[in-house]
């Protein structure tokens, strides 16, 4: 069922809710929710970037957390050098650490994209389960690499005593400001992704998922399209990593663990694959559920597990399909 009117309405209501949230939360005397929803927006961004390749391109990356981690480390390492007062490198040019958001955030995206380019170039030679596993393998390699980074805390990671800096009046230590910055970036990324998926490029990527052979016959090279999508997705994940580093004021290998990659997949499927907006709802649902259940009982995982199972078995279109009456666009 296609129902654009309803989807638009749902997006508008969702956006209005997110815009109003800090006011509602402060009014209700529960400012803490601003922080929680900031986390939701950040994981939402990571999930949207995963949806771009998973939902639209059919590429089940089980190592997406690695790109989030790479972005986070870009912020963390440069900030560490500011704290330590030592340069990042002295040869061939001297580079100092920095906390300027206009430098480190694009850098986080660049690094995410770069790692995605290398990993994607090899991984995309495979499909199906092999693809799932090879992306996992690369993520594990980066995970162990990060653990071995003795200078940057290794397993302990890096605690950030300062957040990234935008132009002066904007102070990211103010949680409401930081919330709106995250919301703005998420909306911008969603807009980019939406344009992409509706473009010739997006059609080619989706076509490659549905019938790779036909795409080849039509003269498209699916590999190049898929790799491009993979790189864009990696860059998006890198950005979310940069934001996560700022939100948690911490960077560490735990961000790259395979459980994290699994959780990102859960968020996408929970929200609805190939819907772009769905993964944001999925991230919200997953994190709120975790928060709520953990508050309820120490044994919350015994409830969360079956819920996931239930969602997979019975609610195949995900939350977004249920709310907006629209699943993946070709279903």
């Amino acid at each position, binding site marked *: 069922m296609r129902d654009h009117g309803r989807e638009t309405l749902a997006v508008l209501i969702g956006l209005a809710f997110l815009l109003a949230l800090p006011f509602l939360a402060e009014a209700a005397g529960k400012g803490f929710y601003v922080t929680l929803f900031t986390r939701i927006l950040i994981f939402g961004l990571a999930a949207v970037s995963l949806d771009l390749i998973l939902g639209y391109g059919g590429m089940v990356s089980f190592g997406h957390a690695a790109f989030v981690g790479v972005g986070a480390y870009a912020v963390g390492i440069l900030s560490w050098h500011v704290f330590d007062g030592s340069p990042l490198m002295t040869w061939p040019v001297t580079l100092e650490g920095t906390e300027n958001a206009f430098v480190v955030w694009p850098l986080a995206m660049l690094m995410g994209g770069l790692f995605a380019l290398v990993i994607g170039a090899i991984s995309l030679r495979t499909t199906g389960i092999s693809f799932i596993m090879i992306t996992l*393998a690369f993520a594990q390699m980066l995970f162990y690499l990060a653990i071995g980074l003795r200078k940057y805390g290794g397993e302990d990671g890096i605690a950030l005593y300062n957040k990234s800096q935008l132009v002066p009046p904007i102070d990211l230590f103010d949680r409401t400001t930081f919330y709106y910055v995250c919301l703005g970036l998420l909306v911008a990324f969603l807009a980019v992704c939406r344009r992409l998926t509706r473009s010739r490029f997006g059609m080619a990527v989706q076509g490659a998922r549905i019938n790779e052979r036909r795409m080849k016959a039509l003269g498209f090279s699916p590999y190049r399209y898929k790799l491009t999508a993979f790189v864009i997705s990696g860059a998006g994940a890198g950005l979310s990593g940069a934001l996560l580093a700022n939100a948690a004021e911490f960077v560490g290998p735990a961000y790259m663990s395979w459980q994290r990659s699994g959780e990102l997949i*859960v968020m996408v499927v929970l929200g609805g694959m190939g819907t772009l907006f769905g993964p944001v709802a999925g991230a919200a649902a997953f994190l709120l559920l975790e928060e709520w259940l953990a508050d309820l009982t120490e044994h919350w*995982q015994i409830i969360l597990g079956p819920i*996931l199972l239930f969602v997979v078995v019975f609610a195949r279109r995900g939350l977004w399909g249920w709310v907006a009456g629209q699943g993946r666009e070709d279903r």
Partner: protein
Amino acid sequence: MTLLLLIEQGLNGLQLGVMLFLMAAGLTLVFGIMDMINLAHGSFYMVGAYLTATFAPVFDSFALAVLAALPLAALVGMAVEVVALRTLYRREHLDQVLATFGLILFFNELVRIVWGPQPIFLQPPSWLAGTVEIIPGVPYPAFRLAIIAVGLAVAVFLYLLITRTRTGMLIRAGASNREMLGALGVDVKRLYTLVFGLGAALAALAGAMAGPVLAVQVGMGESVLILTFVVIVIGGLGSVRGALVGALLVGMVDTLARALLPTVLRTMMPPSQADGMGASLASMTIYILMAAVLAWKPRGLFPAHA
């Protein structure tokens, strides 16, 4: 490094490989026949170890405890199949990954509630607790030899089951053409439940055999799960033969990398640097191996449905 030590390390590699094969066999069997990717395989492994550890003091016998644990684990596996996973066979692998990810959370918490959060104790039977000098001057743990024996027995058992029995014939037929099997009047559902139970029992056997060597604790399944997936992906998904080859390859490469890399690197750089770098490289070797194999043969060494 002496030749004798090298031989001992070779034996260690073989033993690790066989242990990995024990875990991989059930996983790849279920995949090959039902086209089902089951992350909860690690949970059955954990359940097997916990049940064995619980029964061992009761029966005062390790072997009896294993014999009691296996059918129970098979029952757990079949129950899970009937209740939850049956509907997922025709779904995308992604759905299966997710559903069984949920099962991992469930089983970990269940075990924690039943047995508590502290690791529990399981030791080899007293007659296998000592060492045997199969290489002169090198005492080798007897229980590890038992693991090799059990692993090879499982390999032979699966070979005979699949090639020589009627069930095996149905399994092979089911793997290549499900509809045909149904048309022939075979109860496919029951066959699948049985195979899933067999997979769970094999995982439990792996857990029971690993229990005396490793920590029996919540989450023990996940630490081997990833390794096991590496094995079956290298071997070719769904192929028992591939799982055996993949397991031996991973066991051997991993062991030799751990044994040799630091020594080799020490000849090239200062020791402190070499130790750290050797260790980092050694922990990545199997992933590098897997990436290399997949880049060369995207479907693994022995793809099941070539």
